[in-house]
């Protein structure tokens, strides 16, 4: 039985200028066994034409490199489609895993879902000046 799930929501662009943002709520443990479910969820977004995505992670309890690999695999296709994949509200110990592999250099990782939505108004894909979350 899988201990991981993804649910989808849609939020309006706070700037009112772009397409709605698809929010993926991750629950449980993302590892080599469950990475395929996350991959399928992101592929579903792309297939439906959604490229403005926020991964919302307060209920994500665990991530291994297999899960991080899925983020990496979809980053370029999403950006080539004109959108971005932003990451919000990770638990500190989960954020640390992203940080160990240098993900804050590649992704907008912010502390709240609303901050991630606001980043779509500011910039679609510029992590360099993003307020990177650094939970202690």
């Amino acid at each position, binding site marked *: 039985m899988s*201990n991981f799930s993804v649910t989808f929501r849609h939020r309006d662009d706070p700037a009112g200028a772009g397409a709605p943002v698809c929010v993926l709520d991750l629950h449980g*443990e993302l*590892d*080599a*066994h469950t990475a395929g479910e996350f991959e399928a969820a992101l592929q579903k977004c792309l297939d439906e034409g959604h490229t403005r995505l926020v991964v919302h992670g307060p209920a994500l309890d*665990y991530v*291994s*490199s*297999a899960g*991080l*690999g899925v983020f*990496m*695999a*979809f*980053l*370029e*296709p999403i950006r080539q489609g004109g959108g971005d994949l932003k990451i919000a509200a990770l638990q500190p*110990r989960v954020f640390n*895993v992203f940080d*160990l*592999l*240098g993900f804050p*250099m*590649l992704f907008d990782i912010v502390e709240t879902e609303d901050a991630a939505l606001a980043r779509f108004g500011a910039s679609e894909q510029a992590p360099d000046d993003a307020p990177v979350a650094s939970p202690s």
Partner: protein
Amino acid sequence: MTPRAHRLRIPSRTSCLARVRRHVAGWADEAGLPAADAFALQLAVDEVCANTIEHAYGGRADGRMEVEATVKPDCLVVSVRHQGKPYDPKTSPAPPLAHVVAERRLHGYGLHLIQRLVDEVRFRTHNGSSEVVLTKRRAKRG
């Protein structure tokens, strides 16, 4: 403290990784590791097991792995033993992140993580078995 040992035998299936992590958490608790160190060790052992399934057994589900823990006074040692194709985590350095983005895959980074998460990684072979041994030291008090 007399060293105490624990052993878990599992098939080479990714569905068993969560079970491995639960056991490592219990052993770390017994060893008195702080929560952050326990989480780091869980992740490192998970990465070793996932790599064993992928690289040593080529994704086959009929292999076997033995995860063994020894609780010592100053550290917790966890080994993952298998009879698949030998591989040494330390001989597979992670590629630059820019290459990873271009190739859209993260292979090699599990090994990179392992080395960042524990104090020592050793690899050895014996009588057809290969073993990756991880050591997480207990922080000194005071």
